[in-house]
């Protein structure tokens, strides 16, 4: 029951009037930015990062939690009312949500999504409270070889599980690792890839890389292909649910989290797979099979709840192992590093006020989200009408603010543009952006752990695999690498198993 006590302390932190204000501000900002078409949660979080620079870490992360959940929620509003999801996790919400909106049931779709987010987030965060301290305890003794193994796992997972092409994923990862090399070597002070420049000796700030790849890269990419006369959003009233809809959705809300949470915690691409799985499950269990594809409310409720819970699952591996499994988690990890805090098993011991304040504020943020978003939905929907030139000009503007705020140096803006152009090229040629960001964030750290591990073992490579933990992680990596070979027979077996258990 130790976790409960800590959580109560966390609520003490999160519910102080000032922190409550930061949480509310974060939720509002996050929803507003997330609703804007073309801005997914990762870009929203990266763009809003500078807002928290002047705050102390606890307040900053409380605000950050609000931004995260707000942005996720805002994204589903976009896909329901505009049918053009900005990120893969929101694709499923559009499949049933948009037909509902077209049929004049947009209010119900939004309500099902909002309550789904609330339910998924609540259950997911409760699971986080229950699991995270245990995981942290188990992981507390892990040393350099184990950390290195975890980071290799993150690299492999992000390049082989996500995206359609491994080569392109690896290319992206290597670009990220290269950017991470720039600067002084942390152990010897040796200059690497600085070409004698003093500015480069400090390295390239992760925030600049994230903002450059996510925001500037996206703005330039859209600018080159701007759709003339874009989709018209469907007008919507205040969200509400009738009794019949409630009867249909409550089970979906409760089922979603148990699909979403486990997938969030493992490096398998965040909400993409679980939302789809939830959709398929709901479709199979639905009594209104004829409505699917034309606007079945369960198809909004279940996946949205799963998405929200997977966000909580993401936090388990991010906080306890320092392992980011999604783009948003990667940006959050960058934010932690900004404050000189290293997420990992020791985080719960060293920064209890921060961690538990953050977790408690997730609950607070969820309540605020539900309370704010149900009545404000028509206002948010108006944001969808923003003229596209203003939207992308605004993205460039705030990206510049963020990059300049990092260190107050003009050269950072030039680096930002260069990285933005790299991001543009990556979008053009189908190189996923996430591996590069993960490479920049984890690369330097992985190198340090590798060198520390080899220092302990005096150069012997066996020093990397001398703990059961590390061996387990490498086994997982081997499975991931062999996955394309295993997938087909496994899927066939699973398909057979599922139909049997259903019958």
């Amino acid at each position: 029951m130790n976790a409960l006590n800590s959580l109560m302390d966390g609520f003490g932190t999160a519910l102080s009037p000032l922190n409550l204000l930061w949480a509310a501000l974060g939720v509002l900002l996050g929803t507003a930015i997330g609703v804007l078409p073309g801005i997914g949660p990762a870009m929203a979080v990266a763009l809003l990062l500078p807002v928290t620079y002047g705050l102390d870490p606890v307040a900053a992360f409380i605000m950050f939690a609000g931004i995260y959940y707000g942005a996720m929620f805002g994204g589903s509003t976009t896909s329901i009312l505009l049918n053009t999801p900005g990120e893969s996790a929101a694709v499923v919400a559009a499949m049933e949500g948009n037909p509902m909106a077209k049929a004049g049931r947009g209010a119900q779709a939004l309500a099902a999504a909002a309550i789904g987010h609330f339910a998924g987030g609540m259950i997911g965060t409760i699971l986080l409270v229950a699991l995270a301290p245990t995981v942290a305890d188990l992981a507390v003794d892990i040393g350099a070889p184990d950390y290195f193994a975890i980071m290799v796992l993150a690299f492999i997972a992000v390049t082989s599980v996500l995206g359609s092409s491994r080569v392109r994923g690896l290319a992206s990862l290597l670009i990220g690792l290269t950017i991470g090399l720039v600067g002084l070597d942390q152990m010897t002070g040796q200059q690497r890839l600085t070409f004698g420049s003093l500015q480069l000796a400090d390295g390239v700030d992760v925030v600049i890389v994230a903002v450059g790849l996510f925001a500037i890269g996206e703005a330039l990419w859209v600018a080159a292909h701007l759709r003339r006369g874009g989709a018209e959003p469907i007008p919507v009233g205040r969200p509400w649910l009738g009794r019949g809809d409630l009867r249909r959705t409550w089970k979906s809300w409760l089922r979603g989290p148990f699909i979403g949470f486990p997938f969030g915690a493992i490096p398998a691409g965040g909400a993409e797979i679980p939302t789809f799985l939830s959709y398929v499950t709901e479709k199979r269990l639905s009594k209104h099979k004829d409505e699917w594809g034309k606007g079945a409310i369960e198809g909004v409720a279940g996946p949205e709840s799963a998405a929200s819970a997977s966000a909580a699952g993401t936090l388990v591996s991010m906080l306890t192992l320092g392992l980011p499994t999604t783009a948003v988690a990667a940006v959050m990890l960058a934010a932690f590093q900004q404050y000189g805090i290293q997420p990992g098993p020791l985080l719960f011991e060293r920064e209890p006020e921060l961690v538990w304040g953050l977790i408690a504020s997730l609950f607070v943020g969820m309540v605020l989200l539900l309370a704010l978003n149900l009545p404000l939905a028509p206002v948010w929907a108006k944001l969808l009408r923003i003229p596209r030139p203003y939207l992308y000009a605004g993205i460039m503007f705030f990206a510049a603010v963020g990059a300049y705020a990092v260190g107050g140096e003009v050269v950072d803006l030039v680096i930002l543009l260069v990285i933005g152009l790299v991001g543009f090229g990556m979008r053009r040629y189908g190189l996923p952006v996430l591996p590069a960001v993960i490479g920049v964030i984890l690369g330097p750290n992985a190198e340090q752990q590798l060198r520390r591990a080899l220092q302990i073992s005096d150069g012997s490579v066996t020093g990397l695999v001398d703990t059961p933990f590390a061996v387990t992680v490498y086994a997982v990596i081997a499975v991931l690498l062999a996955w394309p070979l295993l997938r087909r027979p496994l899927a066939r077996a699973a398909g057979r198993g599922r139909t049997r258990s259903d019958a």
Partner: protein
Amino acid sequence: MTTPADTSPEPAPDRAGSPAPERRSWLRDHSELGVCAMLLALGVLVLADALTMDVDITQRGPVGPKTVPIVVGAGLLVIAALLAVDVLRGGRGEAEGGEDVDLSEPADWRTVLLLSGIFLGAAALIEPAGFPVAGALLFWGAAFALGSRRVDRDPLIAAVLSLLTYVVFDKLLGVPLPGGPLMGVL
């Protein structure tokens, strides 16, 4: 591992006539080889930088500052080669879609160049002219480049947004931004 070739955003011109356009269309079809060239160049750069490092005895532990760059550089070379093979076999990176992205039209390079120029201009202005001015010009310029021509509304929105951002960040959130001469007057 690869995506179908028909997702390439540039519609391949199907006027097969004289050899010159044919070669051009081959190059356009295989423009992804440029990515391989970039990766190759990056790999060479990383390797050259690593190999010219003069590491003295300050090195602690068996793995010095050179090892990881060498691995990364070699990795870049290998990936450049693998990607080239993939492209020549007909693999294509799928251009990213999005809410406001229309891939049926060829890329509009003018806008991209204009945006980059405006961004650099604003970056150069931020210190002499201050953030409110540079930010407003950035927003207005970017909106203009993206096709907005409301001369009455655009500058006003840009000025308000920039000034508001300056006040909120510099005064309320404690993130310092240069005010410039204008803020000195106000």
